[in-house]
């Protein structure tokens, strides 16, 4: 049996024989969905990247903010 196949079987058997782990995996997947799909995409856009297309523009904006807020 190839090494790669052994690794795949190792994980496959491990996941199949889980008891508490199955419930935990469901929680992990729901949590990751909420974090990365709902929260990140809908509520947490990168403020600078979503407004400015280049690094230079982002730098200029932050500079202006830092100067005007004093």
């Amino acid at each position, binding site marked *: 049996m190839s090494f790669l196949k052994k690794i795949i079987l*190792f994980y496959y058997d491990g996941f199949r024989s889980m008891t508490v782990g199955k419930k935990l995996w469901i929680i992990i997947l729901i949590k*990751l969905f909420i974090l990365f799909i709902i929260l990140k995409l809908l509520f947490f856009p990168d403020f600078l990247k979503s407004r400015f297309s280049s690094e230079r523009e982002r730098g200029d904006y*932050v*500079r202006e903010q*830092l*100067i005007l807020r004093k």
Partner: protein
Amino acid sequence: MILNIDPAVVDWSRAQFALTAIYHWLFVPLTLGLSFLVAIMETLYVKTGDPEWKRITKFWMTLFGINFAIGVATGIILEFEFGTNWSNYSWFVGDIFGAPLAIEGIMAFFLESTFIAIMFFGWNKVSKKFHLASSWLTAIGANLSALWILVANSWMQYPVGMKFNPETARNEMQNFWDVLFSPVAVHKFLHTISAGYVTAAIFILGISAWFLLKKRETGLARKSILVAAIFGLITSLFLAITGDGSAFTVAQKQPMKLAAMEGLYKGQRSNGLVLFGIPQPGKKAGDGQNNFALKVEIPGMLSILGYRNVNAFVPGVEDLLNGGFKPEFQNVSPAETETALPISEKIVRGKLAITAFGDLKKARKAGDEVAAAKADSAMKSNFAYFGYGYLKTPEEALPNVPLTFYSFRSMVILGFYFILLFILVLYFHSKNQLQDKRWLLRLMLWTIPLVYLAGQAGWIVAELGRQPWVIQDLLPTRAAVSMIETASVQITFVLFAVLFTALLIAEVMIMTKQIKLGPKDGGTK
């Protein structure tokens, strides 16, 4: 033109970050400590060949797995918040945060994700020694992940190893090793991970005590208690030592935080350490009122702990506001012992730095090299006070003194209580009387919430005590926050509160159910 930031955006963004960090820190310390305790128990199994140790290892490993699974990725939300709510800060820190967090991500992925699978799936499939090595590597990986996050946090408390580039408005790393091995980073890492070890030791003591109270699994409970109490005693002593180291660096690098921790307004030579005290309600700097309504102190101890010199002058809040004293540190650079400037002067110099920062860009754009050189020189000579330029009054440089004071006291008093508890447990265990001491067993169980309280209090001291700074002396919260709507932060605050509370309830429910079921002989996957 001056841009006014809605204070509500700053407050809600801070509250949201605090909420996320507090919940995150409910999961992390147990992972840090329990991973090592599981590895130690498995080592005992491999060394002795006693199957009872295998059973014990699997039981605690299951609880470790539950905590790990529910807590994993809760910290990623902090990074979301950096990008959305704290975009000025994220830009300003430049690549300083990038390197440690990237290393953390790679390490966490390869070390934890690979070896944790072998820990849980590998029983009877890989050799005993390889399985044991995987358990140790999981523990080391988890703790190394914490290292990089704590290095990034320490840089915010004591920014070193970088140079500000006015062209890009970003800091650039000049010396990675200065960032990694700054005294603040070293002490913070050691103190934080040892807090995790103590948390896990008390978690095991508490649950084992519950088994003894229920007269169930007494063999497992007694063996677990012995390992956890020895581990807990050693690490809690180490926690006290690293706490002293942390306080010593705070005295040097963040003297305002030390003054707040001690509720100290007027400094003096041979300053005492307040053991217990009630700060005067409504006390303000310079109002002439007593600092404390009541206090008990150890004479000279604060000077010894902060300066390693019983006669040293420890500045209070008012001394730091007014300046004019010479810090009495030994073995530091001459710049660190120069006469302290009043905060009002630092504000003036900060405003000069910010103005020069703007003038530099204008001069470069206009091709005026003379004006650019002048602005560059003005900015460099005042950059150490850059953040003070955003403060409206000197009093804005003060953290919340009573909250910092009480949080620090709670952490320290609980820390010494944990040492005493470990000693008591080991004493009665050695006399074979632990099962008869039901008061002690109950105390062990009810200490579990207290150890979490101590950890949270520690973070409140670290983070609230350094206010108003996001980056010490360089960037206060009001300059770091994004120009976003307060309502959007309020909505996500509520979303996080709901999500994290649900996760915490899930953790407690699954963990409680698993504890009640107890260990299974057939495996605990």
